[in-house]
């Protein structure tokens, strides 16, 4: 399972980087989204993939009686997803605004005009 996820993470990174290098601004945003998904999946995989019980310990039982899934990576991913969602919303607005101001979707045309 780890191998499959590692390949998935790798392809997401590759796809994200490829889109970042495209001239289109909207593809830049999609590329950034793919990169953050890749990072989240990597965090998830690095936390360890086990079939295990829920990490809730009752008062009556010892915490070591069963294997429990590590809840921390999931909490971290949740935080990272929220952050990347906000950043994505911001970048989309920015690109949209840049398009309406400059009339082009080409990153090179937008960023090198002043030089």
């Amino acid at each position, binding site marked *: 399972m780890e191998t499959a996820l590692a390949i998935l993470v790798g392809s997401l990174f590759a796809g994200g980087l490829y889109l*970042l290098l495209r001239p289109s*601004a909207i593809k*830049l945003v999609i590329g*950034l989204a793919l*990169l*953050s998904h*890749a*990072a*989240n999946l*990597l*965090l998830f*995989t*690095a*936390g*360890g993939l086990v079939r295990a019980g829920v990490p809730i310990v009752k008062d009556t039982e010892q915490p070591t009686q069963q294997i429990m899934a590590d809840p*921390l*990576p999931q909490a*971290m991913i949740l*935080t*990272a997803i929220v*952050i990347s969602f*906000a*950043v994505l919303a*911001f*970048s989309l607005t*920015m*690109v949209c*605004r*840049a398009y309406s*101001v*400059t009339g082009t979707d080409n*990153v090179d045309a*937008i*960023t090198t*005009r*002043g030089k």
Partner: protein
Amino acid sequence: MLLALPIVIPLATAALLVLLRRYTRAAALLHVVGSIALVAACCAVLARTWDGSIHVLRVGDWPTSVGIVLVSDALSGGMLVVTSLVALAVSISASRGIDIQRRRFGFASYCQLMVVGVCGALLTGDLFNLYVWFEVMLVSSFVLLVLGGERRQLEGAITYVAINLIASVTLLVAIGILYGAAGTVNLADLATRVRHGMDHSVAHVVGVLFLVAFGIKAALFPLFFWLPASYHTPPSLVAALFAGLLTKVGVYALLRVFSLLFWSGFDTTYDVILIASVLTMLTGALGAVGQRDLRPKLCYLLIAHVGYMTMGFALRTESGVAGAAFYIWHHMLVMTGLFMVSGIVVGENPQVAEARNAWLSPRKWMVGGAFLLLAMSLAGLPPSSGFVGKLALVRAALEVERYGVAAVALFVELLTLYALVRAWYDILQRERRKGSPDRPNLRCLREPAFTWVELGPVLGLTIASFGMGLVAAPVFQLAERTAVQLSTPSRYIGAVLGE
């Protein structure tokens, strides 16, 4: 409790400022009051850590292994105070330096939110929490960068947003791999685990990922090209805030994480940092010499002098780290001051008079004088704070017989002086036809072009810089305590993990 105040105060101020954003006068007043309260809180934190002790706050009283801790030591205490001073200076002149449109859109609250992110990043003792504070800081800086929506702002913002998100993803990946290998994100806990029994090759990979992430944020060679592409596009006051805080938080994170996790046994990585620092200094200074326009020139100088800080750290001696810490504090004050002067000289709403004034009014002389003094401080002429910092760094380089590094540091000092004296001449010279936004001229500014509201903070920062140089002993003692704390991580680990 005290340790939470530098985060809580600006956060509360920002929340109130959102409500008050339509009432620009009240908002401006609240912005200044909130910043003064922040200065007081940061001074209180520094007063407690002044003697070299390390203070820990367990947020929510969770045990260290599961909860987030806030830690303050000499380095973060000093950085907090300088950060709050920079924020105060910007908040005072914001009522004149930022146009009414931007202030109605909540400029002040985004400023405060960025300061929240900076203070949080300085205080946290938890790696994932550091990432979160970085994001708080970044998103606020994105908004500040595009606020106003001018075409050139958007041009700069696309580069800035894209590269900073790549840095954030790299940081997140590094944290993920480290968590997978060590099973914790608490810095002190990680420090013990990396030392005892973590696979060395994994540690190397993670170290390089951290170096890339923090290198982008700190604008190290060859990862700095986003900075000159974006920092000159927003209003100068925003650039002043960025120049004072953002890159330095990157350097701080580099110092903190590398001193705790990757201190001994990572010689190659430190060699890479040293080479990158030297190239940062050289390319930054040469870029500054090549630019005629004022603000791009300042951007390149900002990059050049980031190289000094990482150079001192990469030497890995106590004198080098002390010099680096002193240099960070000095640089935050001076760079903010220089960008604020550029704002005054450019005149955010350029009321460029057609006929030039042959004589300068006393106030204009004061601006010119402040620029010259700040330039002297940045170039490192005595008795400024830059002199003390550079002296310490060059001596540290000579102590470990890195003569080439010391020579480059001195050469870059010369280039800095040349670039800035030329800029000074440009803004005062008589024979310019007409000031333009990028090539400003004090003589072309129509009277009254600016008031004490803008002049006061600049003079304050100049005095602070020279005060740091004239009364260098106590500040340098603090820097030396920083160096001792950073080079013996066991103190930090002991303070956080308790007992």
